[in-house]
């Protein structure tokens, strides 16, 4: 067996890795958040219990919005989130005050004494109603509860076109809130340094975003805040806003108390306060002409909850990908993000795609059925192909469109066609024994079997969502060792190790020379957030460009010694050489020292230009696309109401693979999260309150829920990505629930129009 390698594996397997809550500082205080137990939506008339709380033994300070030196409100797009509430509570997760004490227990005790004096406001919990309500506004200043509206208008008048179709289908789908479920809850440790800089450590996904939150709350310049990277115990898109706010609050407490402050969340607080994946309501009307999807009219409502966060970006991706990976002549799409008094929603792995994929990949099969066609055949006829145009008029001609190849490979490794003959379709008629992928034992007679598939294409990185650039620094030492820094963040996915491997591959030196130096926000330019599966793509691009620069610097320093021209200098296999003379890497680095030249290079990767027209929904939305197919096999025990996943096959074109073990780990983990979302994860929302606030009730997949996977890659190095890689984090997740839904349909003979797809026990 080839052995896997990661730079952080040793520290993590020995317990040495220092996550933020594992660290202590001399004289450290503990800070906890205070929530209202009474209100979800109210005007705040005042707070009670502040003095009583301050009188509890050990309490050092009680903090309210009045103590904030900077701005209470912040946000990535719209600054409508209050890090400490000012005049309103808008959802259950709002923080009304902070308590700082010598011990965490003391702070927690004191926090229970504080409550809001409120004037109750009507609860808006249904996005449809909230959208129509012009009187009760969650943010009165905004004039409406609508956060954003994206659209696509392609082709002529959609109703006329639909009326002219051979067949028309109507389908509606609903999806639930999903919790990220990172095992490490939010945590921060802050102290003000003697030089006046607020030093912040914490669990987060985006140090630069965190820095903006901290600086805004403290009212200081960005340069006066330094975010130092610590290991992060999982993110999945969920450690941006909330994690940043926890850091900002801890920094505020440290500033006000003049002592180091730690703020570590309990799981219950984390689930209560952190943003979730958006619930969607999707209404599709699909018109078929011949064997083609001729027209699609779709309206989506996304529940953005009380705050904007990145809802406009999430819903934008749903807009661009509203028809799944299919070519459709006429599209009329409206996607709304809407405020409600539910917990706010934001980035989560998949980012507006899983809801759409869950819907499209089901109605595509319904269309095939309506035409009496094989769903695979129907997909082949309608899917995106080389040089075709997407629904937003983007020509797919700058990379290899491998969707059909990806699907064929998945069909092959899963033995899909043969196995689908065993689908139960709701009756126990097919009782032959067959290999379930788990063992060769015959399947018991009282279970239903189904195999299901889903495909997708996914725009890589941020697209027209935002600024997309990243940098890398290679700092070779004169003894031959190398320090690497990249403006992306290690969330646990192995980003640092991937960067090391890329540097090793591109520069042609031994891997063990390279040490990844996790940069702080004061050491490297803002590289954007490590979301949108962009770490390897963008960070890798920056590394490749830095290597190109470094090679030139080395060549122009050592060429004379190598008795050749600058252009003839090559680096490979740990050697620097020309046609006549060869130096070891160490000799070359030493030579540069003698020449007073720094073997130091900076590299930048700027994403190629993308464009978008908000009015027509026209544009080159993403600079390249990845392709996926996942297949799930289930057994259903109707009596127990239990679904057992017995096989998974996944094939992805994520460009050139940097590290096989790590990319497979992404697929295993991504599918598992998507499957959990599809089949079991439920925050138990009751009147705006999250009842399932710990892992006893918020169930996520366990080892016995998952089978062994078969995973393969189609590796088409992407010409738009300097490293050839495209990213995998999200493709791995986005179609798992859709594949499972189709498998369940093939087992049960009926469809779910919502997730989580929880079966009732038979009575």
């Amino acid at each position, binding site marked *: *067996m080839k*052995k*896997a*390698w*990661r730079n*952080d*594996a*040793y*520290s*993590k*397997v*020995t*317990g*040495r*890795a*220092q*996550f933020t*809550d*594992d660290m202590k500082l001399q004289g450290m205080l503990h800070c906890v958040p205070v929530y209202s137990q009474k209100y979800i939506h109210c005007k705040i008339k005042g707070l009670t219990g502040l003095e009583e709380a301050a009188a509890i033994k050990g309490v050092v300070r009680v903090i309210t919005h009045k103590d904030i030196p900077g701005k209470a409100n912040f946000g990535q797009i719209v600054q409508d989130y209050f890090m400490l509430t000012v005049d309103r509570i808008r959802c259950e997760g709002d923080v009304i005050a902070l308590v700082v004490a010598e011990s965490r227990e003391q702070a927690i005790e004191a926090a229970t004494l504080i409550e809001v004096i409120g004037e109750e406001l009507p609860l808006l919990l249904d996005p449809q109603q909230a959208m129509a309500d012009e009187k009760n506004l969650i943010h009165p200043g905004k004039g409406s509860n609508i956060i954003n509206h994206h659209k696509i208008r392609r082709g002529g008048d959609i109703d006329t076109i639909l009326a002219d179709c051979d067949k028309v289908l109507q389908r509606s789908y609903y999806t639930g809130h999903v919790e*990220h*479920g*990172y*095992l*490490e*809850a939010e945590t921060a440790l802050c102290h003000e340094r003697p030089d006046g800089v607020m030093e912040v450590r914490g669990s987060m996904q985006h140090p630069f975003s965190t820095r903006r939150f901290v600086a805004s709350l403290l009212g200081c310049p960005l340069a006066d805040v330094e975010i130092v990277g610590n*290991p*992060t*115990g*999982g993110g*999945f898109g969920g450690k941006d806003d909330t994690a940043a706010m926890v850091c900002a609050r801890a920094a505020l407490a440290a500033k006000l108390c003049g002592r180091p402050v730690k703020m570590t969340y*309990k*799981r219950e607080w984390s689930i209560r306060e952190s943003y979730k994946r958006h619930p969607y309501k999707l209404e599709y009307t699909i018109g078929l002409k011949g064997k083609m999807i001729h027209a699609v009219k779709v309206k989506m409502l996304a529940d953005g909850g009380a705050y904007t966060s990145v809802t406009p970006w999430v819903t934008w991706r749903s807009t661009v990908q509203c028809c799944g990976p299919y070519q459709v002549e006429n599209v009329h799409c409206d996607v709304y993000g809407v405020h409600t008094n539910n917990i706010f929603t934001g980035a989560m792995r998949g980012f507006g795609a899983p809801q759409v994929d869950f819907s499209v990949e089901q109605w595509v099969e319904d269309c095939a059925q309506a035409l009496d066609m094989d769903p695979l055949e129907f997909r082949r006829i309608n899917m995106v192909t080389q040089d075709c145009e997407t629904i937003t008029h983007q020509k797919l001609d700058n990379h290899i469109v491998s969707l059909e190849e990806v699907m064929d490979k998945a069909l092959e490794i899963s033995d899909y066609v043969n196995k689908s003959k065993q689908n139960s379709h709701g009756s126990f008629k097919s009782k032959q024994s067959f290999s379930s992928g*788990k063992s060769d034992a015959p399947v018991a007679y009282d279970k239903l079997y189904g195999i299901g598939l889903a495909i997708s294409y996914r725009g890589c990185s941020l697209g027209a969502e935002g600024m997309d650039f990243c940098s890398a620094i290679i700092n070779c030492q004169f003894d031959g060792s190398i320090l690497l820094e990249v403006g992306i963040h290690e*969330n*646990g*996915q*192995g980003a640092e190790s991937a960067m090391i491997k890329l540097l090793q591959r591109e520069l042609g030196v031994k891997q063990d020379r390279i040490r990844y130096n996790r940069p702080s926000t004061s050491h490297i330019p803002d590289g954007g957030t490590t979301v949108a599966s962009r770490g390897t793509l963008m960070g890798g691009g920056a590394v490749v460009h830095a290597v190109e620069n470094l090679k030139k610097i080395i060549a122009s320093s050592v060429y004379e010694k190598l008795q050749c021209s600058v252009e003839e200098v090559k680096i490979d296999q740990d050697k620097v050489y020309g046609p006549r003379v060869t130096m070891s890497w160490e000799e070359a680095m030493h030579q540069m020292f003698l020449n007073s030249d720094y073997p130091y290079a900076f590299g930048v990767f700027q994403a190629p230009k993308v464009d978008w027209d908000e009015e027509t929904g026209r544009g080159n939305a993403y600079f390249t696309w990845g392709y996926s197919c996942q297949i799930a096999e289930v057994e259903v025990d109707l009596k127990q109401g239990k679904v057992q996943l017995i096989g998974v096959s996944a094939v992805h074109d994520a460009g050139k693979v940097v590290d096989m*073990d*790590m990319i*497979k*780990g992404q*697929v*295993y*983990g*991504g*599918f*598992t*999260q998507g499957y959990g979302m599809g089949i079991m994860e439920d925050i138990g929302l009751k009147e705006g309150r999250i009842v399932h606030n*710990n*892992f*006893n009730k918020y169930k*996520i*997949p*366990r*080892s*016995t829920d*998952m089978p*062994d*996977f078969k995973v393969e890659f189609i590796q088409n190095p992407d010409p738009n990505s300097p490293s050839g890689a495209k990213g995998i984090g999200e493709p791995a997740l986005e179609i798992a629930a859709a594949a499972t839904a189709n498998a369940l349909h093939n087992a049960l003979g009926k469809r779910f129009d919502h997730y989580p797809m929880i079966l009732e026990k038979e009575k």
Partner: protein
Amino acid sequence: MNKSMINGKEMILKQDDLEKKLIHFLREDLNLTGTKNGCEIGVCGSCTVLLDNQAVKSCVKKVSHIVDKELITIEGLEGPQGELHPLQQAFIDAGAIQCGFCTPGMVLSSHAFLLKNKNPSREDMRRALKGYLCRCTGYQQIVDAVELAAKSY
């Protein structure tokens, strides 16, 4: 006098400490921070330690539970010179580590399991790890790691 063996060293437990939650005692008082806190209600397994070679969740135990027992945390699994236990090496080799937050609990629970089960199937391993959550890996490479290490038990 209340005593316990913690990672091979005898330790005298103060009367005042006996009622503390074991996880807090380990993390806050002994600085054994490899023991992680993921839920604090006994359902995620991140806080797992070995008590007389049984995997227990330290967030639902008190310090009084370790009196006269031998306790091993993740810090106590490696050899005296920092040599990795074969199971730890297997977690690295199989690529079973992503964010690493679940890793100490996974390693210790698998260790307890392998001590008692000589020739486990992958299904047995999955059953044994049922009480331990991992949000990153989908479990496959963790099961691979346990399978890889099983040979050295």
